[in-house]
């Protein structure tokens, strides 16, 4: 039996990799991917907890997270397209009209 905290660590590591990607990558699509990685880190933790707690709530939440992730991806990518149309770029530091 694998200890729960191994799964939790794994979830944490994946989450933090996502965080790292999110705070460093200039490409917006990669940033979106990083968020997905963070979600997956959370999902791993949730499924593991659900398993160990013998409770399905965690898995249900994972289900909803995946659903919402799809929705987010749709809107996110729509925004990326809109952005590309407006500015011909998907590099995040080109987005600096608003600042100060």
């Amino acid at each position, binding site marked *: 039996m694998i200890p729960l905290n191994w799964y939790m660590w794994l979830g944490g590591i994946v989450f933090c990799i996502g*965080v790292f990607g*999110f*705070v*460093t*990558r*200039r490409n917006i699509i990669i*940033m979106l991917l990083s968020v997905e990685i963070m979600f997956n880190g959370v999902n791993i933790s949730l499924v593991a907890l659900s398993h160990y707690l013998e409770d399905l709530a965690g898995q249900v939440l994972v289900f909803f997270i995946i659903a919402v992730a799809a929705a987010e991806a749709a809107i996110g990518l729509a925004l990326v397209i809109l952005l590309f149309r407006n500015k011909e770029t998907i590099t*995040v*530091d080109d*987005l*600096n*009209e*608003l*600042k*100060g």
Partner: protein
Amino acid sequence: MDIIHYILIPVLPLTAFVLNIVLGKFIFKKQAHLIAIAAVGISLALSIKAFMEASAGVVINQDLYTWIASGTFKVSVGFLVDQLTAVMLIVVTSVSFLVHVYSIGYMHGDAGYPRFFSFLSLFTFSMLMLVMSNNFLQLYFGWEAVGLCSYFLIGFWYEKKTAADAAKKAFIVNRFGDFGFGLGVILIFLNFGTLHYTDIFKDLGVIAAQTVMICGNEINLTTLIALLLFCGAVGKSAQLPLHVWLPDAMEGPTPVSALIHAATMVTAGVFLVARANPIFSMSPVAMDVVALTGGITAIFAATIALVQNDIKRVVAYSTVSQLGYMFVACGVGAFSAGIFHLYTHAFFKACLFLCAGSVMHAMGGELDVQKMGGLKKYMPITYWTMFIASLSIAGVPGLAGFFSKDEILWKALSSHSPVGKFVWIIGVITALLTAFYSFRVLFLAFHGTFRGTEEQKHHLHESPSAMTIPLMVLSVGAVVAGYVGVPHILGGHDWIGGFLGHVVGHAPVHAGAEASLEWPAMILSVIVAVVGIAAAAFFYLKRPELPQKIADSFKPIYRLLFNKYYVDEIYGFLIVKPCYWVSANVLDKITDKVFIEGIVNGVPMIVEWSGQKLRKIQTGVVLHYSLAMAIGVFLLAVLVIFGAGK
């Protein structure tokens, strides 16, 4: 006499003031003097009546209404008319009346004619309030009010910068004295719980032995109060070191100088000391201070008067000097002698001033005696009246000045304290100087040949009767006024001494009545008077070129005297300039603008600055935003794990 009559004495001039100041410009115009003279005339009549009552022994002490009341502090407006007040009433109203009359001629045609008379009336009112007061605060009211009138009248020709400056100076210098006076009044209240003369003098014994600590020194409370009160007197009566305003005050119209700066207002200090004589008498230290201040001022002013060329300034310094005499009298306990001199001085000094005014009138405003000469034949009335007044001030026997001055010198000489002897010596020397400079002016102005311009010469004329009549009346006063105080050794009864004795008591020296000293003193003063006059005659009639030679050979002393011992310059350097400098350069520029405003404006500037810096963090790059969030999460975790929560 009904109380209402007493009230009318000051109220009538007040009414005249109000009418003149409000309506004068529109209604009275050239006739502004009528109402003023009528008011002061009736006041004079009532004063004489009051004097009669007082000499019959009736003393009025009546509160009219409560002026200020706060807790235990209660001061009324009320009148105390006793013998001292009665004398003052006569002096004030009579001189005031004469000056009013004189002014008709002197101020004729001036644009501010109604204003002048309204201020004169206001002054009369104030002075009467001062002398008739039955408490210290009302005295203080009158005290300040006469100062105000003095301010107005000195600055009457305010277009002249010197006049405006002089007015301001007079008021401010007086304020220094009043500062002490005010504190004295407060101290009196704190210790007696009242400001009414009678109540205070009744309880004097209570505080006799009390002391207060000031800067580690134990000072007798009575002495302190007396000295604080004397501060006021020093200011008002232009004693050292606050004498500087009086000579400058000559910028005012001459009638004003006569009324305010010779006869009445400046003597208020003497009146104050006399009025508070029970307090002063209890403190030998204070008495000595008074005597010394008076003595030193007397000789100090007299020396300056020796070399001045401005006719009014000479008279002004002479006034300062004579006021010194009065304080000498008070200082040696001879309050009645002081008042006596005050009374006689009012006549001859007012006369001198009005004569000077008359001369100015004729000379077209010229004041320099060096530019006069030989006026005797053009204006004989002025000459003779001035001659009489000068004789009187010089102390020639038989004239008013002789009796009063002699009384003072004798009292000083017979005083037991060494201070008394010292001031007597000073007094005698001063008498010599007085005789000299009085006649110096007289001789320079009226004798010899005219040294002015042709145009002036053309205009020389005797003054109109409105001016000469008061001169004559005053010169008569300068002769006869002294006969109310003929000393015992001359077969008199010293009536005035006895009369005032009800109020000021009989000074301790009286008891011994060291008549043995009186003759020598009197003879000596007669001698110095004669010597002084003779010297003046020698220098200015016989050998007119000599004074210049002497002046040249004693140049430093001459310049020191001519520049009035540089007192004004010293004050300017020590007090006035530093004040302005501190105000402009320290308080305004540094404390306010740098320190306080620095903080006030600096804090917002720092906030703004940090805002501008913080703006840089908001780069517009979303990665930085998420980085901030990540760091935020981390720090929050650290805060909670290691922070206060656990």
